[in-house]
């Protein structure tokens, strides 16, 4: 009888210790959580649309979007990429499947009119955006975009990240489309957004 009581008290003590340890762990849990290693891009921005009006990124919410950074004097890779996005969107059978956003990395030459004309060339809705030098610099930073002016005078060109970034309807970064990826891969990624 005495032994049993002792055993029970020990059991209670052990239980209390385990419980306490669990509670302590839980209260410290946030500190123990591993830092997420997956890189993420994006974040809210306010730029300027083709009408010269402020365009807040919250306007994109509710529908997925593909965002691409380029410049209107870019004769090869930029139109090729935008044409491809338009084609992929048609392949998904729905013009409204996702939004296509084009942001210039050349605000010096690309004002609202220039990005607007450029976005209108593709025969399908594309949101063309520009901004002040500091607005563009910030959005480039948030979206992990590199760009660098090459050459001087009016004829300069710009080396820039040619990867398309994909965001879901909650404006969460999902994946990317690289220029050398196949259409099949790109379509699969776009389908996952919706």
């Amino acid at each position: 009888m005495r032994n049993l009581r002792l055993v029970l008290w020990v059991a209670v003590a052990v239980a209390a210790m385990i419980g306490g340890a669990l509670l302590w762990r839980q209260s410290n849990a946030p500190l123990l959580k591993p830092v997420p290693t997956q890189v993420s891009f994006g974040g809210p921005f306010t730029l300027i649309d083709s009408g010269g009006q402020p365009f807040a990124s919250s306007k994109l919410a509710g529908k997925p979007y593909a965002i691409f950074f380029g410049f209107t004097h870019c004769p090869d890779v930029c139109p090729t990429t935008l044409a491809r996005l338009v084609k992929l969107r048609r392949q998904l059978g729905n013009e409204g499947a996702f939004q296509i956003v084009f942001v210039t990395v050349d605000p010096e030459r690309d004002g609202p009119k220039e990005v607007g004309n450029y976005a209108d060339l593709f025969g399908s809705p594309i949101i063309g955006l520009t901004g002040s030098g500091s607005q563009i610099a910030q959005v480039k930073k948030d979206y992990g975009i590199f760009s660098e002016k090459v050459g001087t005078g009016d004829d300069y060109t710009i080396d820039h990240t040619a990867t398309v970034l994909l965001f879901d309807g909650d404006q969460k970064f999902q994946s990317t489309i690289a220029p050398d990826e196949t259409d099949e891969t790109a379509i699969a990624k776009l389908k996952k957004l919706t």
Partner: protein
Amino acid sequence: MLRPAAFAIALTLAACSAPGPKISTRDAWARETGSADSAATYVTIENKGGADELVGAKASIGEAMIHESSMDGGVMRMRPVANGEGLSVPSNGKLMLGPGGTHVMIMGLKGPLKAGDHFNLTLLFAKARPHKVDVTVKPAGAK
């Protein structure tokens, strides 16, 4: 430096009656432009003869240069193909200039290119005579 050697080799080959290049082109097109004053032109060059090199181009509507786009860690870079450095048009083969790769860049356009427009492009080769090409302007959404 290599020129005299190449010339000597060319002479030797000529002596063995090496066939000259036989150039033809197809699918020459350019993309419609917006407010930009430059355009990329694409063309497929076929050669049914001996090897040649594309060394330059001239356009009726602006200054033409051969450019190369290349990917470097996700960053797209565009550079002129160095002066005097030709692009190989292999014997009985072809050289394709297409989107996202090598193209003829036309700069200083006097006005925008509209879908349905045509213009002349002359391709310059190391051996073959200059080859005139009729370029069709296609909608921006063309691939």
